């Protein structure tokens, strides 16, 4: 347990606070919508968007931080413990805190009748888990490949923003639909939803596996200054 507490401290408070901040932003937006007279279905849509879009964004940005901002990397590489294992524990803490909060919010929304996602409890998990896996995997891969916080965070932000901007086209086109991150909140649980969740999760696993392969030589993360 003390090892996990240590890794949480090494991951840094900004990375650990990203998911709670995203949920707070979601609740604030929903409260703002309700306060300005938006009908309940719109407010429920905002809450669903928060779970599906903001939590994965926060987890992905936090993952970039965990990978890119380690001031003791040289020291870590000199230890007998394998560095990919250390990174995996830190990423697990970040993704785990996001997942726990998403489960909690989903449960509250289901209990209060504000949930507009799939009815099954297992499918509800896939609303946030698949985009979280896909986007965090992408963030991890770009951070390891590019060794640059700017490049990795810009890539994540742009993918997220472009999928929001071109949502109608991406959801309607056959080839892009399986890769669309926000299908539940933008198009509902319609045809191809299961395929979309499976493809996103598979992409995430593929990105993470590739990043782990690259991390077999962890010294590639060493750099003089953030580029």
């Amino acid at each position, binding site marked *: 347990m003390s090892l996990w507490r240590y890794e949480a401290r090494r991951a840094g408070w900004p990375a650990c606070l990203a998911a709670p901040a995203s949920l707070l932003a979601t609740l604030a*937006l929903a409260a703002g919508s309700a306060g300005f007279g938006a009908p309940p279905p719109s407010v429920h849509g905002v809450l669903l968007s928060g779970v599906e879009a903001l939590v994965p964004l926060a987890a992905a940005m936090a993952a970039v931080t965990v990978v890119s901002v380690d001031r003791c990397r040289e020291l870590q590489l000199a230890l007998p413990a394998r560095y990919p294992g250390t990174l995996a524990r830190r990423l697990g803490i970040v993704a785990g805190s996001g997942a726990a909060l998403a489960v909690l919010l989903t449960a509250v929304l289901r209990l209060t009748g504000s949930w507009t996602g799939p009815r099954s409890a297992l499918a509800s998990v896939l609303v946030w888990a698949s985009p979280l896996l896909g986007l965090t995997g992408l963030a991890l891969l770009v951070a390891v490949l590019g060794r640059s916080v700017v490049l990795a965070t810009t890539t994540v932000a742009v993918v997220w923003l472009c999928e929001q901007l071109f949502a109608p086209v991406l959801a309607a086109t056959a080839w892009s639909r399986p890769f669309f991150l926000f299908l539940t909140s933008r198009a509902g649980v319609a045809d191809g939803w299961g395929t979309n969740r499976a493809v996103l999760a598979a992409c995430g696993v593929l990105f993470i596996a590739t990043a782990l392969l690259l991390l077999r030589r962890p010294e590639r993360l060493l750099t003089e200054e953030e580029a």
Partner: protein
Amino acid sequence: MRSCLSAVCRYEFRMQIRKRSLWISTIGLAALITVAQGDRGPRHLPAGTDAAVVMGSWALLFSMLLPIGFGMVLADRLVRDHRIGIASLLAGLPARTGALVAGKYAGSVAATAVPGLLVLCVAAAGEFVHRGDPALFGWAFAAFAVVLLPGLAFVAAFALVCPLVISAPLFRVLFAGYWFWGNMLGPDYLPSLTGTLLTPIGDYPASWLIGERALYAGEPGWLSFLRPEPGGGAALLSVALLIALAALPLAFAGPLTARRTSS
């Protein structure tokens, strides 16, 4: 004071302009939005369209994504001084903290403006090939000055100062979310700043150049007093408000930097 400000500005400019990630992110984002613009984008404007409309449309198009990269690049500029241990050294210089912050801000804005302006000039050159109107280059500069630059000045001020309070990673998460919520999310869907005079995407100046509503400028919504009809006056007011708002975080930058250096 003036020579100190200019010296800090120059060294910050030189450091930033050599940053690979600035160029890679600008070129990547510009290429992406050019390809993904769809049939309503400036590439598909009919022949004979006024040069101001063409370049105003290009400036707005680039303004949708380029500031994301600029914000990410600038998010660690002041935090970095503390991280690599030169903040105490800078505090020992015969220059006031205000001059240091102002110089860093001006240098950062100038350095990020260069790739933005170049991208717009490349777009003007591309349009010149099949439109043959030399005025496109003049309007490229004008569109840059009124659409992209005020937004960049706004983003740079917040990207420099906010990470001192909430850390760079948290700022980057909130900034990506804000950019969509405050600039491109339709005001009829959620209460948002989209379509107000305070949108750094340059909706009002672009609407003025194009001669019609570019995105959401002036559409009914939250904070109706900030949603006048688009036009020359509204565009000017939007630019002035964005620059005035940019001064707000900068006013806190000196004390925040000094507090971090002394702690």
